[in-house]
């Protein structure tokens, strides 16, 4: 077992803090571009935890899962930014509280 020189708990704590930042941003911001950025931060924090675990046990699996998270992030951003363009055209705003038509 190669292991990290730094304690594993510190890396996981950093990943948790980054994830909480993203979650707070997602809940507090109402601009859809910032909500997408928060999603990116959250996915990135999860990837950091995976790579740290892979490095801790000296296995390649962590980086493989990182690749899959990268794919998910790219797909999510492509569709999300297409939705941003549609919302901007229809509602003339990026404020998500204005786009509440589904509530009836």
């Amino acid at each position, binding site marked *: 077992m190669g292991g990290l020189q730094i304690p594993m708990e510190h890396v996981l704590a950093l990943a948790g803090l980054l994830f909480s930042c993203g979650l707070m941003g997602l809940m507090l911001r109402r601009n859809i571009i910032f909500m997408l950025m928060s999603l990116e931060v959250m996915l990135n924090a999860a990837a950091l935890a995976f*790579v740290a675990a892979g490095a801790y046990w000296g296995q390649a699996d962590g980086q493989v899962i990182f690749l899959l998270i990268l794919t998910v992030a790219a797909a999510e951003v492509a569709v999300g930014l297409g939705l941003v363009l549609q919302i901007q055209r229809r509602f003339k705003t990026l404020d998500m509280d204005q786009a509440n038509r589904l509530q009836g």
Partner: protein
Amino acid sequence: MMEVLFYIAGFVALTATIAALTRANAAHALIYLIVSLLAVAVLFFLMGAPFAAALEIVIYAGAIMVLFVFVIMMLNLGDAGVSREQQLLAGRIWILPGIMAGLLLLELLLAMDNASGATSGNVVAPKAVGITLFGPYLLAVEIASMLLLSALVGAYHLGRRFIVRRGEH
């Protein structure tokens, strides 16, 4: 010494993320978000995952952030966009992200100068990642390709309607 580099990069990642998500201006937030991704890439490099670090910069900070830049620049066209662009080129806002990015570059140079070059005892090489990816994780690769295809179709559908309607007016 590697531990110190790790904690500095982690601090930069955290501050840049908080700064990014509390900006009012989306373009300024993007600069901080790119610094945050670069900091995470340095963390990957220090943890003995150079392949993941390279992909983080190429795909996250390169491709995905450029998509964000495209959309932000598309959304504020016209006179307001011109004045905002002059305000962006004013320079003051670039100083702090520039200092952060310079710090990360310095860390990277220090880490590469060091013989071991990584905090982790053993570096997981790209070859091992490739063998694992196309061995036990082959099904996941297929699922990822289907996901990318569906994202491509979805993004094309959303974007095509946008462009056609704009052209009709």
